[in-house]
């Protein structure tokens, strides 16, 4: 059987910095190829070349044996290659049908043919298993359903190959299952996939073939059945990583209560939440997407109001927005780093100093002295192992995701918080950087900080937490104290209160 797509010795450099250094591989028709690699390994660049968004410096791509040189993504789509990007490119103010056919409306003369639009949209929606009327506004759909709409859009061009870039990051486990089922169904119809993901378990489960990139070159490839997590991580990191998580020193949590939450309610968001956080404790917060964990974090930090209930920090009741809470010793590392975690255009150092500038101001006018700030920044940068090129003078957006996250962590370390809320601190970060962030979290807790850790990666919670609270539909549905952690019981608690799961005991 001839290869669907054959790539030979592809190279690409940006501003003289090589990103791909001669990559060769083949994709078989109807195969699912998993593409793994750390941040900056060249996964996105490689797929942007295949998807027509970039052009290679050298090397050849062959599609069905013919030389394939797409000029743009539209040309790639015509050749049968569709790219579903990580950030969905959909419009909530338009209908499902309009989203599907935005650049390719069926028309009758000058006008949109609404009957044809509706009919064709219904066919595509049925293919991805969405039973909604085509004229429903997209804003009524959940993130997972929107992902399916994006795939329906890709199917419109009758592709032979669909590239899925991190499709599962915003999906709940049932939505993931639905997506995987769809991918397998489309595979049975002969469509090939490239599946890019940091969720290595998903890669192993879904794919037939695995390709690992490291530093712009193929580090490892082979049939998925010959891979396991350890081999994947080893090839990605390029050295034997003995374990994914740092050793957790046996320790007992100080009995002193730091944060107390009493009966918090906010309709449609959280219901009857009460818990305590002790000094030096790492409190994991588990639950499905949309269980209300991020919303609870925003509420604790004063970003959004709550209707009833009280929060006490060191016995003092918290009021008002984030500023008094930061002064009282609270810090929040937000879930979406790019949107509300960093000021992308500002320098790394400015980002690090953002929350604590007033504390460094001197004199009646509040002058800032760069001589005084420099050691402050370099000390904290060193403590989080931050790697920058120009001593942190470059815009933070030029850093890799892992280094951006370390910079944001450094920002909150400077504030010396007593309570640190971490919302998905390792999302979209490569394994090596993850490891360093885990070490930091453990060190902070050992030094007495109370940490609330929100994570969708269960292993992460199991490895780091002293205690895990589970949320489901805005309520607390389970509490587990180390060492009595049980993944299955955690999942059951997370599924409680879901009306679609009556068989799961609450």
């Amino acid at each position, binding site marked *: 059987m001839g290869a669907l797509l054959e790539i030979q010795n592809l190279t690409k450099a940006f501003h003289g910095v090589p990103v791909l250094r001669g990559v060769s591989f083949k994709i078989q028709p109807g195969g699912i190829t998993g593409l793994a690699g750390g941040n900056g390994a060249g996964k996105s660049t490689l797929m942007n070349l295949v998807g027509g968004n970039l052009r290679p410096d050298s090397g050849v791509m062959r599609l069905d044996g013919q030389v394939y040189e797409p000029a743009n993504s539209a040309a790639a789509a015509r050749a049968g290659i569709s790219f579903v990007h990580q950030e969905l490119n959909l419009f909530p103010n338009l209908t499902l049908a309009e989203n599907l056919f935005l650049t390719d*409306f069926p028309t009758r003369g000058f006008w949109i043919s*609404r009957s044809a639009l509706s009919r064709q949209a219904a066919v595509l929606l049925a293919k991805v298993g969405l039973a909604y009327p085509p004229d429903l506004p997209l804003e009524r759909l959940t993130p997972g359903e929107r992902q399916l709409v994006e795939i329906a859009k890709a199917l419109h061009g009758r592709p032979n190959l669909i590239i899925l870039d991190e499709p599962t990051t915003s999906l709940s486990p049932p939505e993931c299952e639905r997506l995987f089922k769809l991918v397998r169904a489309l595979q049975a119809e002969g469509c090939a996939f490239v599946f890019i993901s940091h969720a290595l378990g998903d890669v192993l489960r879904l794919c037939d073939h695995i390709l690992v990139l490291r530093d712009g070159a193929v580090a490892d490839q082979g049939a998925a059945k010959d891979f396991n997590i350890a081999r994947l991580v080893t090839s990605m990191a390029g050295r034997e990583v003995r374990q994914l998580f740092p050793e957790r020193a046996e320790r007992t949590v100080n009995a002193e209560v730091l944060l107390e939450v009493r009966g918090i309610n906010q309709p449609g*968001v959280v219901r009857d939440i009460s818990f305590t956080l002790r000094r030096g404790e790492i409190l994991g917060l588990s639950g499905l997407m949309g269980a*209300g964990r991020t*919303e609870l974090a925003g509420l604790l930090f004063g970003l959004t109001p709550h209707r009833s209930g009280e929060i006490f920090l060191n016995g003092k009741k918290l009021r008002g927005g984030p500023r008094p809470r930061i002064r009282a010793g609270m810090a929040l590392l937000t879930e979406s780093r790019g949107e509300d975690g960093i000021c992308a255009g500002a320098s790394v150092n400015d980002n690090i100093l953002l929350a604590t500038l007033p504390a460094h101001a001197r004199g009646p006018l509040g002058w800032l002295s760069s001589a005084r700030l420099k050691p402050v920044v370099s000390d904290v940068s060193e403590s989080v192992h931050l790697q920058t090129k120009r001593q942190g003078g470059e815009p933070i957006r030029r850093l890799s995701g892992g280094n951006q996250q370390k910079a944001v962590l450094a920002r909150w370390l400077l504030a010396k918080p007593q309570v640190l809320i971490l919302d998905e601190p390792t999302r979209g970060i490569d394994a090596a950087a993850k490891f360093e962030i885990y070490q930091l979290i453990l060190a902070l807790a050992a030094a007495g900080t109370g940490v609330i850790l929100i994570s969708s990666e269960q292993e992460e919670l199991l490895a780091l937490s002293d205690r895990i609270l589970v949320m489901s539909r805005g309520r607390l549905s389970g509490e587990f104290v180390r060492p009595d952690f049980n993944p299955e019981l955690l999942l059951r608690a997370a599924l409680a209160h879901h*009306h679609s799961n009556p068989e799961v005991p609450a």
Partner: protein
Amino acid sequence: MKRAALLLLDHAVVVLFAGVLLIFGFLAPGFLSWASLGNLLIQSSPTAILAVGMTFVLMVAGVDLSVGAAMAVAAAVAGKMMLGGWSMPLALGAMLLIGTACGLINGLLVTRLKIAAFIATLGTLWLGRGCALWITETRAMNLPDSFLHLGSSRLFGIPLPGIVCAMVLAAGHFLLERTPFGRQLRATGHSAEAAAKAGINVRRLLTIAYVICGLCAALGGILALAQLGAVSPKFGLNREFAAIAAAVLGGTSLFGGRGSVFPGSLLGAALIQSVENGLVAINANPYLYPVVTSAVIFLAVLLDTLRQRFRAGMTRQIFQETESEANSAAVT
């Protein structure tokens, strides 16, 4: 509950319109007569047409402050032409051409030079005002009677301005709702970046939106001129605010991506006109007019902000509570 509030906010213009009619009808007998209401619609047709054009620009999260100035330049040139012996159709054609050109300039400033729409059109507002003063030499020009006849003539018993207004509304509505261009415009208003990624030619789309706005400014100018019969240096002054207020009152969002030409823009324009007419009918102090008009503009923007907040608030709720859950909440 929130859905009901949003529904009310989305149709606030209807409620307000009814309220204004009732209040003035109560204060000034005769305000609610058929003749007076018919007059109201005819009088509001220039603003309605401006609002249609403005809807296209607001839809892409832009704004055009220069529509009043474009009206003035077009009217000044047409006035000079007609007093210089040119025929009316030529003068009208020149007006439309000038309006289109003004829109094109705005569109190019915004898309090619990347100047923020607010600043770019503020610049062309002053440019246009200056040109109008220069062309008219700050003097009023009385137009030939043929122009006034245009405003009062009827076709099948319907006043010509009403017919023009209806045609513009219909064209605008179908362009926005039933063509690929209109739907892509809506998408671009939600996110220009996402639209570009989807393969939409955003620059061309934005330019066309400004051209449509300029063309509507000229058309609205023709109707206003036909009602006045004279070009004054102050012709079209501050009409941009009436146009923006009418469009926003009619449900078009200043944040882009949401809104409609019909019935939104028409009702918004009629609401503003009825306030102006009502103030005349009750013999209000003329110095109060700007105060009331500004209140209308604030109200329009407030409504838009409230709508936006409500939408955001509704998505912030991450799951729909069932009835039993809501009841148990009432107990706790």
